[in-house]
């Protein structure tokens, strides 16, 4: 998906009525040996990632979140320590300068803040969003992907991709309205 397309054909898009049909089709297309495929649904469909063969390793969001949380918490704690014990020491009620329990509330908040920011922006970055232009948006019927239709796209950069054969395969797995997706720029 990262390779810039030299071909103006992006892939073939098949439409389905229910998540069940989509999952069944995705499985069959994978069994037929295609790997560059993606499915589009108006809500998260349970088991669809497995049907497409996406493993846990595709998902770096938890790791990114952990890094954000650790980063926020550790830098928050040591920053407070540096501020209140070294850069601008203040004697408050005779407490020791490193009165670490008093730094915990802010450390906690910054842990959550760091983790949340990393989770959201990490998710967007891994999904390569925002992405205003995508060849799929050229297909008029694709508007239904955010309503009640389910789509399966076999991408043209798949080594097995052959316009005629692939279209026939999509029809054989009960796809309606098999359309060629063209990238027009």
């Amino acid at each position, binding site marked *: 998906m990262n390779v810039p397309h030299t071909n103006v054909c992006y892939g073939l898009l098949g439409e389905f009525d229910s998540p069940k049909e989509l999952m069944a089709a995705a499985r069959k297309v994978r069994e037929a040996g295609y790997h560059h495929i993606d499915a589009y649904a108006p809500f998260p469909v349970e088991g669809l990632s497995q049907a497409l063969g996406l493993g846990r390793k595709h998902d770096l969001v938890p790791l990114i979140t952990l890094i954000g949380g650790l980063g926020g918490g550790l830098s928050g704690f040591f920053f407070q320590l540096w501020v209140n014990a070294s850069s601008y020491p203040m004697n408050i009620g005779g407490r020791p300068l490193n009165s670490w329990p008093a730094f915990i*509330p802010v450390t906690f908040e910054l842990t959550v*803040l760091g983790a949340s920011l990393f989770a959201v922006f990490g998710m967007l970055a891994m999904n390569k969003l925002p992405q205003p232009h995508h060849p799929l948006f050229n297909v008029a019927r694709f508007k239904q992907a955010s309503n009640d239709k389910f789509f399966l796209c076999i991408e043209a950069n798949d080594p097995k991709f052959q316009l005629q054969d692939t279209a026939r395969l999509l029809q054989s797995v009960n796809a309606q309205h098999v359309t060629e997706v063209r990238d027009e720029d």
Partner: protein
Amino acid sequence: MSTGDRTVNSPEIRRLARVIEPGHSYASVTDKISSIVLTRPVSIGWLAGFAIAFSLLMLMTVAIAWLIIKGVGIWGINIPIGWGFAIVNFVWWIGIGHAGTLISAILFLLNQQWRTSINRFAEAMTLFAVACAGIFPLIHTGRPWMAYYMFPYPSTMGIWPQFRSPLIWDVFAVSTYGTVSALFWFVGLLPDLATLRDRATNKPAQIIYGMLAMGWRGSARHWHRYQSAYLLLAGLATPLVLSVHTVVSFDFSIAIVPGWHTTIFPPYFVAGAIYSGFAMVITIAIPLRKAYDLEDFITMRHLENMAKVMLATGLIVAYGYFFEFFMSLYSGNKFDVFLVHQRLHGPYAPYYYALILCNILTPQLLWIQKVRTNVAALFVMSLVINLGMWLERFVIVVISLTRDFVPSAWGRYQATFWDYSTFAGTIGLFVTLLFLFVRGLPAISIAEMRELVAHTSEEHE
């Protein structure tokens, strides 16, 4: 589905157990919710409500402008009552926000299906309540243009905030809470913004929703990461929401003022926050489902469950009041004993009795199912609890400050016109934002409702 197990065959029980009325498809859910934003004409009722709310908001801008010109002396605060309405309202608003996060995060982790149709506007309520709350400590500083001193930034003066102070913890807790609530809300909105982009018929709407949707196309790969990010955010927001009101209660309990210096404050503040928040969700849900015919989606099951949560948290709050009372007497500390006496017989005793009436006695009616399933009764109840929770903060702030240790330092507090107008103004801000939200964004999560349709149709098969 605990309600369904008892007498499954009773049609009444089945009606009450529904989280969505039967007969809905993916397309009908999309149509019904998105049409409120995209096609429904602006009604007279909406305009009238908006006009009233917006006038109150304008009153707030006048009150704040006058405050900035004259200083905090226009309020009823004095020495020793330095906190007054500003802090009462701050705690009240922040508390209201908590139900939104509880519904969207904690009920999500607990896999409660009934959260689905109420989480979106409850999260919006959280954001707007935090916005209202944030105004008060800011303008209460007296010199709001210097408020940035509270943030640690490398200044040429070489000074830094004092991180051992609960007031600085508050700055971090509330700003983190606001940020995380906004992120959670936006992530939830993303697929729905794509729906609006695809269904909008006029150019400006297509451009605005298109930019906000960021090119979301519902790819399975995207949904996969989206779901893990959403789950992680729910997991992060859960301890966060508990920490926020805990930190707010530290503002009181770290001080040595009688009536404040008590270890029961954090849990009972959190319970009170959820209590008042659910009351506000009900206050909003009842007119919303009526005005936009959303009874299919916000069913009696939702209202009844929220009433049950109110009852449960109300009992925790009652437990908190009882132990606060008991420990003050049991401690034998003469200042604490005196404070109890002041609450029962002092100049502000009527507020205390009104608080007990609103927060403890009236909600006991929720034990009766007829009350929980009566929309009008629930609406009145939610207003009573909102009032009661405001009185609670008034009692905590004002009674303790007017009668602390030395009689020569005692005082009286009387709110002024500007106190009331600022408070009414934030209600105006809150309602204005809610009115704009209902017309500008889907008030119910469309993607999650489709998921619910998918689940319920599987159950039938």
